[in-house]
């Protein structure tokens, strides 16, 4: 076969081949070619837009028209620091985000574990579909359903009536409850994927070495699944930090997003300044999550 090939004429250098030759042996060119599109989009487009927004944080505004004048000023940050309500709101948002994350982790782990390690193949498939389905019913419809469930004449008070207990009604508790509900699938899926990746042979080996199921859980499963939990927590934390519609629909409380949206029209610099808070928090959170290995489990 080799002899015949040696006699056959070399294939014509098509444009495609010539281009391929250009890239060959020049990995930097390959990477640039591959990354130029996404990077232009994300860096120039997205980060550029963020820069534009954050630049406004250092400007001042006319009280009458809301016109932004590009004169440098730190007044907005001064307002945020001087007035304690902004600290209260920021801390409230972070606190609820943390609570929601912990709640979802506690709710998601058992079900993810069951799906990954206990359920039969068919049950697992059914459960994956069952867990993903709520993602397809609209966020707004779900929040509104909770609003009606929590109302004075709603199903929660109706169900608890015979026990003479009142449901939580609207308020911060309601926000925590609804957000834990909304983001739960985003926590279940990464944990499920992470647990699936743990080979059953590891668990058998642990058993063979004499560990009780609890010890196996604590010293084998949990450490291996932890990065996946962190990956899921990125979503629950980020989505809670940014939401202002749920707090508006089931409570009176102000979240960071509420303040930003209230100030967007007439005081964009203040809104931008306050927007720095969730951006900084999320960047730090992402850096920690990356260090914990979460990015491989998203």
């Amino acid at each position, binding site marked *: 076969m080799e002899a015949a090939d040696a006699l056959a004429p070399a294939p014509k250098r098509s444009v495609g081949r010539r281009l391929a030759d250009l890239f060959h042996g020049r990995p930097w060119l*390959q990477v640039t070619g*591959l990354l130029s599109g996404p990077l232009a989009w994300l860096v120039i487009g*997205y980060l550029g*837009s963020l820069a534009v927004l954050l630049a406004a944080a250092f400007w001042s505004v006319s009280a009458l028209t809301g016109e932004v004048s590009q004169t440098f000023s730190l007044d907005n940050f001064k307002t945020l620091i001087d007035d304690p309500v902004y600290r209260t709101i920021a801390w409230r948002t972070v606190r609820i985000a943390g609570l929601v994350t912990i709640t979802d982790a506690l709710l998601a782990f058992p079900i993810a574990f069951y799906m990954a390690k206990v359920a039969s193949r068919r049950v697992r498939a059914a459960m994956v579909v069952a867990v993903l389905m709520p993602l*397809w*019913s609209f966020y707004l419809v779900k929040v509104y*359903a909770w609003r009606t469930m929590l109302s004075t004449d709603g199903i929660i008070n109706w169900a608890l009536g015979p026990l003479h207990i009142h449901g939580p009604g609207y308020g911060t508790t309601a926000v925590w409850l609804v957000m834990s*509900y909304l983001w739960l699938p985003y926590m279940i899926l990464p944990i499920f994927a992470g647990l699936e990746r743990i080979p059953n042979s590891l668990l058998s080996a642990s058993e063979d070495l004499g560990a009780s199921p609890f010890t196996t859980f604590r010293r084998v499963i949990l450490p291996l699944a932890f990065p996946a939990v962190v990956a899921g927590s990125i979503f629950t934390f980020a989505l809670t930090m940014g939401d202002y519609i749920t707090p508006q629909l089931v409570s009176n409380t102000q979240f960071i997003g509420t303040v930003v949206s209230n100030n967007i029209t007439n005081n*964009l610099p203040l809104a931008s300044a306050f927007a720095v808070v969730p951006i900084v928090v999320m960047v730090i959170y992402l850096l920690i999550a990356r260090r914990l290995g979460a990015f491989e489990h998203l």
Partner: protein
Amino acid sequence: MRLSRSSRISLRIVVAIVLAFIYIPLIVIFIYAFNSSNLLEWPPPGLTLHWFPEALKNTDARDAFVTSLKVGAAATAVALFLGTLASLAVARHRFFGRETVSFLVILPIALPGIVTGVALSDTFTQVLGVPLSLLTVIIAHATFCIVVVYNNVVARLRRSSMSIDEASADLGADPWQTFRYVTLPTMSTALAAGALLAFALSFDEIIVTLFTIGPGEQTLPIWIFENLFRPNQIPIVNVVAVIVVLLSIIPVYLAHRLTREDEGVSGRGGSVVTEATATP
């Protein structure tokens, strides 16, 4: 893993409770879709099928549905393109700033929707002088959808060995052919899963959309937002939600099957080559 009988039972109970938690609100939505009154008291006074044909007749809802499909498809296509490019670069090469790409890609979805929405909206209207329209919505959606495609494809590429690609090159294929005949099929299930998730994200998105959409257009979530408190429309909103959920069962199941098959072919933690060479 062997669990004691009591552990198994307690686990099953916990799972049942969590599933109940997940589904009770959905069941409430389902029931309200058949509610004979348009006041949302509980329990509902009666049931009727009346709202289903009303929903199908509602032109605003239908138009919004079609708009959402268009935006979702376009945003997914862009996200697929950009996400694949980025994941190929990251999974197949080492370079300065490689870690940063993963970080960059997740930023649009990790930052609050209102921040992304206002930033993009201001850039469009003030810096670029571009009026808001469906195009601006598509651009915004694609930006935060890139991450789901990227993650799926990177995970897939990491699991598959590069030796197949090298074998393909050794056999005389140029890089484009290798990509088309070897890499792409390997990635296809990851692409499908990523595309489905990206579409779902775009379909349900409200906050960023509110800031980037033009005045004459409505996606389905925006239509829902406008009708959320109108007594005559709320049952229709519930019907629309129920219809969409039911319609989504098929693609969700398909996506799951695709990723399961994917596992079967390459095996967990291994590549086709390893499996092939493992058999004696």
